[in-house]
């Protein structure tokens, strides 16, 4: 992958929640290996990812079968290196492509091709052995043409479609936790003060983020920012509204209950007379 200096992306997301409930397993006098393999209960490590595609129209250079140049990828949501958890990514393309199963063994996990059609790309993420032995599947519909069908196509402005998701690693082993705890691609919960993790050799800081899309990728100027703040605000507002309605209905219901009781009383006294 060509390594050019691109504009650095600032951290996109707003406040990421960090605190989680953690229950510490009482470590007995086991050997250190056993300790490392122990799972930390009620904890989850979260890897926010973004996957999607960028497509450029080739303009004059477009032929019938190669009208667009597109790149499909999976990246860290803050453009950090996903290689710390993802071992490789497999992109399954349309059968009309040569070798439709493309395996990307190292980060950045992206694949560029040229073509004319839109189809569904099946992305399979294989994780490092200490994360999981089962792969996860993502599906992305490759988009080449902009929503606004009538507008002119531009070679300068690409079509970008991205989806945000998070890979949740629940109850990670202590070793994995130790390995990941300082990596920027990963959200790691705060552990209580008394919890001591086994010490592991500190990874080479320089090499750590090499596979990230921060500095080296020319495409990162097109990446979207995903902010949870906006969504949170809207959800909070919606909840308030609904809660208001609920309160109102509850009041109405209790009112009717009171009325009905009264009427029953009236009926009783009426029938007694």
């Amino acid at each position, binding site marked *: 992958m060509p390594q050019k200096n691109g504009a650095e992306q600032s951290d996109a997301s707003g406040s990421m929640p960090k605190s989680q409930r953690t229950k510490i397993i009482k470590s007995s006098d086991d050997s250190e290996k056993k300790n490392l393999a122990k799972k930390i209960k009620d904890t989850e490590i*979260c890897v926010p990812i973004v996957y999607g595609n960028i497509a450029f129209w080739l303009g004059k250079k477009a032929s019938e079968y190669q009208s667009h140049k597109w790149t499909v990828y999976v990246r860290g949501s803050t453009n950090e290196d996903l290689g710390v958890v993802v071992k490789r990514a497999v992109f399954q393309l349309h059968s009309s492509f040569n070798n439709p199963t493309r395996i990307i063994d190292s980060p950045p996990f992206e694949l560029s091709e040229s073509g004319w059609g839109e189809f569904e790309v099946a992305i399979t993420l294989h994780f490092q052995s200490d994360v999981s032995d089962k792969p996860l599947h993502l599906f992305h519909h490759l988009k080449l043409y902009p929503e606004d069908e009538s507008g002119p196509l531009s070679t300068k402005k690409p079509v970008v479609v991205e989806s*945000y998701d998070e890979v949740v690693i629940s109850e990670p082993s202590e070793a994995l936790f130790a390995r990941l705890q300082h990596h920027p691609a990963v959200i790691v919960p705060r552990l209580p003060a008394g919890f001591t993790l086994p010490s592991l050799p500190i990874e080479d800081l320089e090499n750590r983020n090499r596979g990230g899309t921060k500095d080296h990728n020319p495409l990162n100027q097109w990446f979207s920012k995903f902010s949870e703040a906006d969504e949170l605000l*809207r959800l909070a507002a919606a909840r308030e509204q609904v809660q208001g309605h609920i309160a109102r209905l509850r009041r109405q*219901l209790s009112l009717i209950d009171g009325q009905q009781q009264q009427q029953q009383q009236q009926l009783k006294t009426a029938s007694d007379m």
Partner: protein
Amino acid sequence: MDAKDILGLPKNTLSMQEKKSKPPKESQRKPDGISREVYALTGGLAPLMPAIDANHLRRKVQTENEKITWQWLPFSNSARKDNLQLYHWVRVVNSVPPTGDYSFAKYNKSVDVIKYTDEEYEKHLTDNTWTKEETDQLFDLCERFDLRFVLIADRFPSSKTVEELKDRYYSVSRAILTARASSPGEVSGHPLLKEPYNVSQETERKRALSLLLSHTKQQERKDVEVIAHAKRITEARKAIKASQEPPVPALSESEPVNADKDDLTADTTAPCINPQFLSANPVSETATAVASLHMLRVYLRTYALDQMVQAVSSSAGLRTIKRVEQTLQDLGVNLKPKVPTKAVCAEHLELRKEILTLLNLQKQLQYKEAEGSSFRDSSYAETPGTPPKQSQRAADLDRTFTPESLQIGGERFVKREQKRKGPGRSSDAPSSPAQSKRPRKYNASDLLNIYM
């Protein structure tokens, strides 16, 4: 006879046949040894096997040697403490009257009620709640009434419950037994010591029993439902445990259901059981979903959210789910969050739950309205103000009016009736189709304003 003429049948043939059949039958009726009627009972056929074995019948005369007379003789009864002399008929064989005690004396059993001395009382039996006098009275009654505690409780001078009396009696007996025994091992086999009387347990048991007996049929049905549901939950839990080996987080949500089942003694009235019962369903589904996610270890948050949403909506029908989604859209919220972080997903889930609650409340309100209107038959104290909004759906209910009310409310309601007939709708309020939620809500509140 005329019919036969018409049909053209010969008249005489049948009667001829009857005559023929009669004589042979009569010749058959010749029983031996038993009367004719009895023979007829058997259906005209003799039995193949004798019903009674003749050997089992007691011979009328045992032997000719003995001479049997019956004499009116006095007898004594060992069961009696007084020396009452009674007489009865006695079968005398060869002038020898029968010996032995009165045949019924052996049935005179009584209980061995322990008798303690004052010394023993001082040493072992003093108790805070029982005076010596009371204990003595208790034991006296026990002996008189053969430990029939219901009677004893009735006769006991100060009021104590049956369980308390039993408790005192048994603990005293136990104490005396252990005190008198030379070694504890000797007496440990005694039933009083092997299974000591447990007051609290007994009280509780009797209370539960009486409550169970006084259950109405409705409560019985509810209990059956709850038990069936608990069974389903435990089976689901077992299924999870079987398929996934690591331990599942404690399903504390199922405990309220179990407690409900066991706690039949609690005053659970019908509405009380229902909400607990209904809410246990999506809650247990949620627990199942959480467990399965845990099992996955590594999963996508959108997938997790989907599972949780499904679990929460498990008790809702398809229509309700559509309404929830409609509401979400109305509120300007994406059906699937664009930025599914942990916080966003949590909020989204909570919002969905709240919308479900809201829809349930709306439904409840409608039902209440329907119920409430049917109560109206007494006179109204209404102020003739502005006529209410004539809502079509709300008026579909039976009402009986007393004549007085017609002057004030009558016209209004007549109008309403007419309006109802107008469009020709006859559906009940609760079951009207869910076209738009907002207008319905206003209808409900309008009704409230009318009947205030």
